[in-house]
């Protein structure tokens, strides 16, 4: 009886469910179907045996990873870069959304919003090429400006001194606008009467932000924070592949790139799958832990 009621409701809103279908199909095809391939982390992958027919190898490839002399450094680099991105990068879209919300000139607001979204659609290869051109020591406009002011040219790219700044700066520039959309939507959903009540109570702009806007987006921020902790073991494959070089390898070699180089470049698919599985395992533990903490200290949690 209950289930037939559910199907009736589904049928009534069938168009909405149809719109969901591509998203569900995407997750099913790209996130769930490939899960069967995880078994290759426990097998000696051969071209002829493939994912399901290669001989079992137990934990051989996990042991190989932990025996690898740079595995500690790679894990450390991944966590450091991800933590920096989380600590510095996470509040940025919130700040942008708050600032945008305070702009009263609608045209100006829309222009800024559009401009801030645009970098999200630019691929990393283009972003890094732009950075190379702008920051080059040899004819890059940034260094030209520095030298015209009597300063020494600086080697920004592939330099340990500037590595984290470039990683964080480019990541924020690329994602801040896009990530702020969800906060803008949350802010739009706040009851306007709350602002009016705050005004009557004598609250200025900052007080309104502090007492009305921020609590209004708190739940969504907590949810996004929990989700972001799941990416702690993943520092960003494309960005790090392109921005890391031999000069910065000691702080820039990360798990995502290690998985690709060992899997695709060296053809060690089982090893790469084992490292990838380890990465995902830790991510799952992190999400569950942070979710548990969030549930304990506030009433917001994912599950």
């Amino acid at each position: 009886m209950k289930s037939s009621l559910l199907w009736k409701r589904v049928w009534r809103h069938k168009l909405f469910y149809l719109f969901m279908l591509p998203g569900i199909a995407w997750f099913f095809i790209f996130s769930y179907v490939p899960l069967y391939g995880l078994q290759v982390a426990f097998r000696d992958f051969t071209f002829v045996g493939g994912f399901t027919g290669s001989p079992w190898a137990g934990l051989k490839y996990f042991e190989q990873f932990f025996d690898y002399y740079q595995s500690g450094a790679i894990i450390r680099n991944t966590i450091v870069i991800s933590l920096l991105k989380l600590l510095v990068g996470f509040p940025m879209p919130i700040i942008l959304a708050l600032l945008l919300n305070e702009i009263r000139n609608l045209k100006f607001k829309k222009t800024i919003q559009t401009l801030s979204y645009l970098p999200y659609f630019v691929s990393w290869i283009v972003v890094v090429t732009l950075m190379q051109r702008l920051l080059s020591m040899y004819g890059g406009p940034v260094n030209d400006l520095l030298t015209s002011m009597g300063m020494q040219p600086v080697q920004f790219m592939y330099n340990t001194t500037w590595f984290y700044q470039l990683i964080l700066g480019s990541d924020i520039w690329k994602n801040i606008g896009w990530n702020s959309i969800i906060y803008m939507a949350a802010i739009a959903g706040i009851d306007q009467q709350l602002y009016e009540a705050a005004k009557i109570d004598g609250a200025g702009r900052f007080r309104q932000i502090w007492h009305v806007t921020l609590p209004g987006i708190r739940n969504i921020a907590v949810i996004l924070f929990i989700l972001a902790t799941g990416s702690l073991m993943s520092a960003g494959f494309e960005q790090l592949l392109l921005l890391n070089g031999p000069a910065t390898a000691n702080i820039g070699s990360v798990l995502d790139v290690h998985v690709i180089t060992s899997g695709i470049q060296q053809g060690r698919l089982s090893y790469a799958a084992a490292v990838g599985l380890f990465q995902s395992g830790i991510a799952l533990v992190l999400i569950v832990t942070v979710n548990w903490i969030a549930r304990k200290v506030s009433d917001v949690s994912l599950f």
Partner: protein
Amino acid sequence: MAKFRMKTVGSLLSAMMLTSLLYGCGGGGGGDSADGDAVTLTILNNWNGSSGPDTDTTPVTKAIEEKTGIKIKIDYTKGSEVEKVNQIFATQDLPDIYTGPAWGGELDGIIKAAKEGQLVDLTDKIDKYPNLAKAIAKENVPPALYEKAIGGIDGKKYMLYQNHPATGDDVNDWLYGFYVRKDIAEKVGVDPQSVKTKEDLYQFLKKIKDANLTENGMPVLPLGGFHDGWAVGIGSTMFYGTSYVDKGDGSLENVFFTKAYEDYTLYYRKLIAEGLLDPEAFTQTDPIANEKIKQGRIAVLAAHYPAILDASKDYVKSHPGSDYVPVGPLERAGAEPNRPVDLSIQGNNVTVITKKAKNVDAALKLLDFLASDEGFMLVRYGVEGVHWEKVDGKPAAKKEWFDKFYEDTTGKVKKNEGIGIGLENMTGMDRINSVGGGDIWADQERLKAMDNARKILRPNGISVISAFNPGDVITKAPGWEALKPSMDQVGDVWKQAIFAKSDDAALKVINDLRDQIKKTGYDDAMRFVNEELKGKEVVKLAMPN
């Protein structure tokens, strides 16, 4: 009604999105296809940066189709060749014919594919194709390569081998070395031929740096290279003879474990630290490298001479007198001054037919035609009577086409005729001089420059290496699978070391990898190598080629 229309449009849109999404997951796949009477074969030309014509059909491919009834479709690799080999077999996105480098990780990938049933066994078929059989005959393949791959994997022949010189006349010396812009050498007052030792080279680069030369307001870099650092590291020959050296007790060890390797690393570290070597050289792509050369911003280039001549063509055209000329000859570690230059002259290419090929006979027919004298000249020179003709029995370029190709600095016009589109990698043994008429498309100035460089860099001629290379033997050691991932890192670790903040930090980076290599079975593997090579002649000196 409007609601109904909206619903219909919505449903249609969703269905289209889903269909396109699912369609995107389907394999494109190559393979034989019947197109009328002609068979179409897909070929992967696995050479980084190679490219083809604007359309699949060219005068040369048309001529091949007329001769063999086979249409061809070539794909090209943009990026790492090793990555490509692993990728096509892991994803099973296979061409009918694969052709690529006959060395390193690329060859290892092909051997793995052969062992795992991914390639067509040609053992029983090869004798029917004389042009192919000749190119893989034991006497036409270097011994270590024959034992390792070409002669058979587990007793079966899978690989065809190409571009091994058929005669002494066909030996191709790529003239690897350091080349300096003539005008810059004059500006700093140094005769490039007076630069002999590593200290001379360092001082020479320093003089260029101290001259603070600029080009269009941008500083000129003393030393540079091409993509991913190719081939700035060739100064290694000033420090050690080859990759495996005598420990002093008659046994061999990898040069990575020697003091000479440390000296070599610290020398390059000094070049980086003092701004003498372009720090972007190891991360740049070829287009960026070419741009720097075209802008006149690199004083000394390290690579093979044809690449340097190609890259500098435009700049030299607009700045007469700025040609790149050889530096040295530089000292060679462990070699007497009057010793001919030891070069590993061998074929550079292997071709295999993958299990995807449904029409193996057609593939062999095509490859046999390409390896014939007729096929050899067709893909290198173009269509006889159209692009070239025989003069006194030797091929000579038609002036009309020579001028067209010469004027086009991009090389696209030549490719659109079907010349230099990768088919030349499948033409059996190299017979460019013994059967052909040399490089008929090279202009006189280029030939003169090559001759001049040869005279300077090879004053005692060359000596072709025929001895065993321990690097080939170690890959057959029982523990090689565990050792290989560590050994594969030597190149990357060297780059990390030369960018280290101090000499000590550089040595630490090297020592850390040394420990890892030892931990993963190096000593056992070297015992195997020393045992295998007992009594055999081993390569002691080799220059890049």
